[in-house]
Structures are given as structure tokens and as C-alpha cells.
């Protein structure tokens, strides 16, 4: 009979050469301060391996150095990125630092990261159509035309950058006004809002139909057709 060693597999007894001990939570403390000649490299590695911005204090703790040394190292790294022609930039986000790619390379980053394109839903298209044709328009007016609350969808369209807040209405309560963005024009292949077909353009096309709902020539197959 042989014994089962399953429980042993996760933990290796004793310290592994080169690997630090488990740190409990959040930011672990290395055994000693980072030597000055490695400081910029270690800082770069720490920022590279972090998804979110890191505060100078977090970085100082991980590197075992004073916060002021972190500031210096960040400056050196920033300078090297600019000098050596790198795609990376050190940016300050909130109260932390983050490495990001140069904005001019966004196209290629989007291409590798983008994944499947986001398909606009029927409710999103409805909301977008109201905003496009009635802008600037309040949420109340959109709700009124659609007959349902559009709050969540407006939020999502804002996040997607298709819609922007374009001011406040003079109505009581000064509700927010919404309008479309340049990204909206790009997505629909329009040069300007003037290129949007108007209802006047549409009517002659459907003049002989009692109701538009019966027209089968729609370029989409949404449930509301």
C-alpha cells in the first residue's frame, strides 16, 4: 500500500531560494532594503507587475527604502522611458504611479486587447437614437419617448464614450442634458450629425406602409421588429 502525498504538494517546507516568505496580506516586506543600483529596476518591475496604481508608500515598503528614494527612482524611470524610446510611460494616477502605454499606440493596444466588439443592444440603440435625434436631451425626455427608465443604459453609453453630458437644462431641477460624442459619429460612419438621416428622409421610404413595424427591410433583427 502506498501513501498519498497530496497535502504536501502546495507547501514546500522551508524558504525557497530567491523567493520571499509569504507576507500575510497586502504589501509584504522584503528582508532588506533594495540596493541603490537596483532601485530603478526594482521599481520598474513592481509597477510592471501591478495592475492598479501604486502609492509611493506602498512602493517604499516593498522596496524597503524611504519614500523620497521612490520619488527619485520614478523620475529616473520616467526619464529612461523618454530617452530610450520606449512605448511605456510612468503616469501619476490619483495618489499613485502606474506604467501605461503611450497614448499614440492606443490603436494597436486596442487591436490586441479589444477582443470581440461590443454589440449595442436594442434598448441601447433606442436610447442612443433618442439622444442622437433629440440632443441635447434630458433623461426625463428619453424615458418619456421610450416608455421605460433609461438610467442604466445612459450610464453604459456614457462609459462606452458614445454619449456625453452636454450641459444642464433650464427646466426645474436643472436636469442633465445628453448629447452624442465624436466616437458616436465614428462608430456609425458619419462625418457629422448633419449626415444623420432625418425622419423626413425616412417617411417617403415607408409612405405606403400603414405602420413601420410591418416593414421587413430593417437592417437589424432585434426582438422589437
Amino acid at each position, binding site marked *: 500500500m502506498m501513501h498519498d502525498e497530496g497535502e504536501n504538494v502546495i507547501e514546500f517546507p522551508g524558504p525557497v531560494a*530567491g523567493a520571499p516568505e509569504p507576507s500575510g496580506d497586502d504589501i509584504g516586506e522584503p528582508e532588506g532594503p533594495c540596493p541603490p543600483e537596483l532601485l530603478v529596476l526594482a521599481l520598474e518591475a513592481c509597477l510592471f507587475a501591478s495592475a492598479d496604481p501604486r502609492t509611493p508608500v506602498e512602493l517604499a515598503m516593498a522596496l524597503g527604502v524611504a519614500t523620497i528614494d521612490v520619488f527619485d527612482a520614478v523620475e529616473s524611470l520616467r526619464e529612461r522611458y523618454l530617452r530610450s524610446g520606449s512605448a511605456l510611460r510612468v503616469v501619476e494616477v490619483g495618489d499613485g504611479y502606474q506604467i501605461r502605454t503611450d497614448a499614440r499606440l492606443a490603436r494597436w493596444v486596442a487591436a490586441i486587447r479589444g477582443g470581440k466588439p461590443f454589440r449595442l443592444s436594442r434598448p441601447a440603440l433606442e436610447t442612443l437614437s433618442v439622444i442622437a435625434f433629440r440632443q441635447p436631451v434630458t433623461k426625463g425626455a428619453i424615458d418619456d419617448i421610450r416608455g421605460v427608465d433609461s438610467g442604466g443604459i445612459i450610464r453604459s453609453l456614457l462609459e462606452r464614450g458614445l454619449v456625453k453630458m452636454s450641459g444642464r437644462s433650464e427646466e426645474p431641477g436643472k436636469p442633465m442634458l445628453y448629447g452624442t460624442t465624436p466616437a458616436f459619429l465614428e462608430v456609425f460612419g458619419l462625418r457629422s450629425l448633419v449626415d444623420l438621416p432625418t425622419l423626413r428622409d425616412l417617411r417617403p421610404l415607408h409612405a405606403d406602409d400603414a405602420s413601420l413595424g410591418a416593414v421587413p427591410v430593417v437592417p437589424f433583427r432585434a426582438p422589437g421588429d
Partner: protein
Amino acid sequence: MIAERAVQALAPAAPVARPPEPPVAVPAYDGPLDLLLFLVRKEGVALREIPVARICDAYLAHLRDLDEIDVDRAGDYLAMASTLCLLKARELLPRLPTVGAVEEEEDPKEALERRLLEYERFRDVSEQLGQMHLLDREVFARPEVPVSPGEQPIDPVVDSYGLARIFYELLERRAAPPPEHRVAFENYTMAERVRFVLSRLDDGAEHLLSEFWVELPSKRGRVVTFLASLEAARFQLIDIAQRIHLGAIALVGRVHSAEADLSMLAEHEHDDQEEAR
């Protein structure tokens, strides 16, 4: 302990009481082959002169060091100890002259040697593997950063004409009297709803259940459509799928509506007529 006694029984030369010093210092090791290899390599014990008693003592000491005697683990060592005893016996006892055809049987010592050496190769290579730069131990890659909504390309699904048409429809819908007052909308029947669901799934695409509701303003319409979906699934006309845990429910067509066997609807149609009367 049974296991201990068994190990001791295999090594009658060993004192029954635990010796003050373990005869062989045993580091943390991984199984009897590992220990045997250690004894042979580090202690310079020739395999042909293996002191069974010493090895059994070493095994025994190791078993004692385990937090509690694990019968399975002890078994691994017992099996090895018995192999060693067999070896020893062969060395000590005169060989009986073989009668008749000579059976070619592998020498147990050679077999053990080969196992040991084979084990050693893998142990060495696993040490090398352990010294490599492992991801998330010595080297690190970029963490997964979720694609932010702004980064994802947008498929508008319709063109500017479609967008205008949607707006036109909205205006028409608003101009129309509230659908709750239309008798036709209330007149959902199971049979009609099953046909409706099937016809919407003819393109073979997956459609979210919630889509079917968007156009249904009344509760009754939604409930009947939902029941009709279940009915269609029961008769294996459609599949109901939930691709993601707690995700949206989707309906998938299994048959083309024109070819579907809808005989099961007869019962519903009968009921519907009864109700209408």
C-alpha cells in the same frame, strides 16, 4: 504500533529499544527510494553489502519522526525493507542448484539498482526544474487587466438608417394608444406563443429570453411567452441555455419552425378554445 513491530521484525538484529542515536541521520526525504539513494550515495554503502538492519533502523527512525504512523506510508517502507531482506537472504544463503530448464529471472539486486538509478535521474532533473525561474516565483508577467468599456470596439449593429428607423418606431409607438388597452395584446395563447418563439429561433442563433419580453408590455404576455418557452423545451423543440453561471438565460432553436412537430399544441389549442368559450 503494528507497523513499527513489523519493521523491527524484519530486522531482528536491531535492538528493540530505540537506540539513543539514530544509526543514520535521515534528512527530510521523499519515500524509501529517496532514503536508500541517500544511504548509498552519501554514506557510501555498497548495495551488495547493504546492512539491512541499519536501513531498517533508518526507516524505523523516520517512521517515528512522522507525526503519526500512516499505515500507507509505512507500507511503502515495508515493501522496500522486504526487498532488501530478500537481497540479503540471496547474499547469505547458498543457491540451490536449479533443476530442469533455467528460468531467466532478473537478479533482484540488479532490478533494485536499476530502479534506484532511474529514480535518481528524475530526482536530479526535478532539482534542476525547481531551480528554474518560475512564473510568479522568480519572474512576473503583467497582471490581467480587464478590458475597460472605452477600449472595446463597438459594433453598432445597425447603420445610421437603422438608428433613424428605431427612433421613428419609438415615436410611432408613443403615438399609438397604450398597448394595455388593446385586446389583441392580451390575447396570448400557449399555441400562438410556442409558434412565435420557434419562429424567432429559425436563424439558428441564440436569443436571450429577456429579448422576447422587450416587446411585450403586459405581464400576461411575458408569463405566457415564458411558459411557452418551457413547453417548447419540454418537447425538445428548443434548448434553454445559461452560458455563464447566474448569467442570462438564452433560447436556442433545435428545429426549423416550418418542420417542427407541433402536434403537442393541439391540446393547448383545445384548452384555449375552451377558455375562449
